[in-house]
């Protein structure tokens, strides 16, 4: 009984705000709506068929590619950063970790608008590059896929750094010494010991970056200028503008499907490299 009380709030929260909406989306995806957005109570696979239209598939593919590039860049930037933090003297580590999450303390929209200022054709980046003489005419950085990736990367990089830092910090330095003692060069130690043992941390970070990047619709809209349509924008439009809820639900479920596959993959890979074997 006591346990139920403790579980209660979380359970209630998850049921009302997570499980019920998901169930609703699954249910709606099998319905059809008329031109005015009213649902017809008749089971049909029509929306699933429509979702297979190359138009939607292309949007989905673009989204996966953009979120994928963002995640890859986050790993490449996050790993050395997390490594450097883990090697700082203990009292500096906390300071730097706070600096890493500091941007989260300001409003997300404000930070994204700052990127608009930065990437603008009249903005400082374009200006400096012209001043140095690297380019001749103002550079169109804003409203490109690159701008979307930069915005996503900026927003979610801390979510990569933190789990990586934990994984690197937890790694027993004697394991690296043991590898060198057995004849491995520094590079070989990294490839055979450090990397595989911090991979679970990198995978957690990858999920943390990929998931919100894939479904994001604010950053593509503000920095992509509506030219780079991601699946998040499409779903939002189908729900709110076109009012085709069944199609929107199917598209939402497609993201959910991708994420589910990724989570399974992540847990499989992590288990392979986990210190404690489960087989």
């Amino acid at each position, binding site marked *: 009984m006591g346990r139920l009380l403790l579980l209660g709030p979380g359970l209630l929260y998850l049921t009302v705000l997570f499980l019920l909406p998901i169930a609703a989306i699954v249910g709606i995806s099998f319905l059809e709506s008329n031109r005015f957005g009213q649902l017809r109570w008749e089971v049909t696979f029509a929306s699933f068929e429509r979702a297979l239209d190359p138009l939607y598939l292309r949007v989905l593919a673009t989204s996966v590619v953009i979120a994928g590039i963002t995640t890859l860049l986050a790993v490449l930037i996050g790993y050395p950063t997390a490594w450097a933090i883990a090697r700082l003297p203990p009292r500096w580590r906390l300071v730097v970790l706070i600096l890493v999450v500091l941007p989260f303390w300001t409003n997300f929209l404000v930070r994204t608008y700052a990127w608009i200022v930065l990437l603008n054709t009249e903005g400082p980046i374009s200006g400096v590059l012209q001043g140095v003489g690297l380019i001749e005419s103002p550079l169109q950085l804003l409203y490109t896929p690159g701008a979307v990736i930069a915005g996503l990367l900026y927003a979610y990089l801390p979510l990569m750094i933190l789990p990586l830092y934990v994984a690197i910090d937890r790694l*027993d330095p*004697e*394991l690296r*010494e*043991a*590898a*060198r*003692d*057995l*004849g*491995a*060069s520094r590079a*070989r130690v990294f490839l*055979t*010991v450090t990397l*595989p*043992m911090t991979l679970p941390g990198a995978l957690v970070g990858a999920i943390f970056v990929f998931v919100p990047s894939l479904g994001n619709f604010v950053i593509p809209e503000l920095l992509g200028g509506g030219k780079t349509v991601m699946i998040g924008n499409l779903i939002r439009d189908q729900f709110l503008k076109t009012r085709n809820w069944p199609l929107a639900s199917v598209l939402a479920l497609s993201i959910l499907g991708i994420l589910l596959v990724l989570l399974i993959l992540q847990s499989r890979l992590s288990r*392979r*490299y*986990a*210190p*404690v*074997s489960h087989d």
Partner: protein
Amino acid sequence: MTDPVHDATGAPPTPDDAPLLAVRSVSRSFGDVRALVDVSLDIRQNEFFALLGPSGCGKTTLLRILAGFEHPDTGSVTLGGADLLALPPERRPVNLMFQSYALFPHMSVERNVAYGLEREGLPKDEVQARVAEVLRVVGISETARRRPSQLSGGQRQRVALARAIVKRPRLLLLDEPLSALDRKVRGEMQLELKRLQHEVGITFVVVTHDQEEAMSMADRIAVFQRGRIEQVDRPVMLYERPRSLFVARFIGNNDLFPGTIAPGGLEVAGLGVLPTAESELAVGTAAWLGIRPEHIALVGEGAPRILTGEVIETQFLGGASTIAVGVSGYETPVLVTQAGATRLERGATVGLTWDPARAVVLPSE
């Protein structure tokens, strides 16, 4: 191969009496802490050598210098005549068995053991053959495919040992190899390590704080205290001829009497001159007399004696008995060990005597 350090198969390029490992005037400080102070040491081919001392005495620092994870501030280390300090850890013909074992948790036992051989670029079938062979030698063939987390403490210790000896290093370093094992397994492993050392013919340097462990395994022992070597000797000599008060206290039990050197022995306040072995110390120098409890004989009335006292307490320890004797004029009870059970009762008057050659003179600190 031209590099003499890497010539692991051939005979050392130095004459037989030259040491395999020569440590010369090595010092190392960490901030204000002097971990090693002017340490010099010779270790011979095929020796089982122990670095013994309390924690923080510098023995582990020396081990890490030999492995290549620390660098001395001053001094030199040569192995087979070649400069060892010039080589990074991965190129030294030296392997270290870590106190924590440091087994790779993401690899199976055989992958752990094969790791070092793979780094040498040996052909796959040779790696496999040597891994299988070494697992057999240490007696854990059946665990080859398991992960370290699935092994018992004793099995893990054997994996760590196998991983370190499979490369056939010229020098095997063992950092507190038995400290993580429970008492019973530890006794077995002491014998096992000794057997292995003979079988594989590798020079062993073991770091330990456990004097019994060092005494039972090592051919020679270096006793460390506060970064300095107190004495390097065979276990028997360390026991019978300690050269410092620290060694006398650290190794086994000793009855210790403070006094000053007098002709024929040591003058102890309240007891007169006690006979000792000959000493180089000048008459009048402050010194200690140290004698093992089993080297003191108890004699009855009328027999010649050095001291007279009264039995305070007796303790039967199975194979031997310890008798605490209160000597008039001296505060600390003198401990005497006798084989078997004793018939002495508390309060009995006894005489104490010893062979002066057994009583060691130790310089005051």
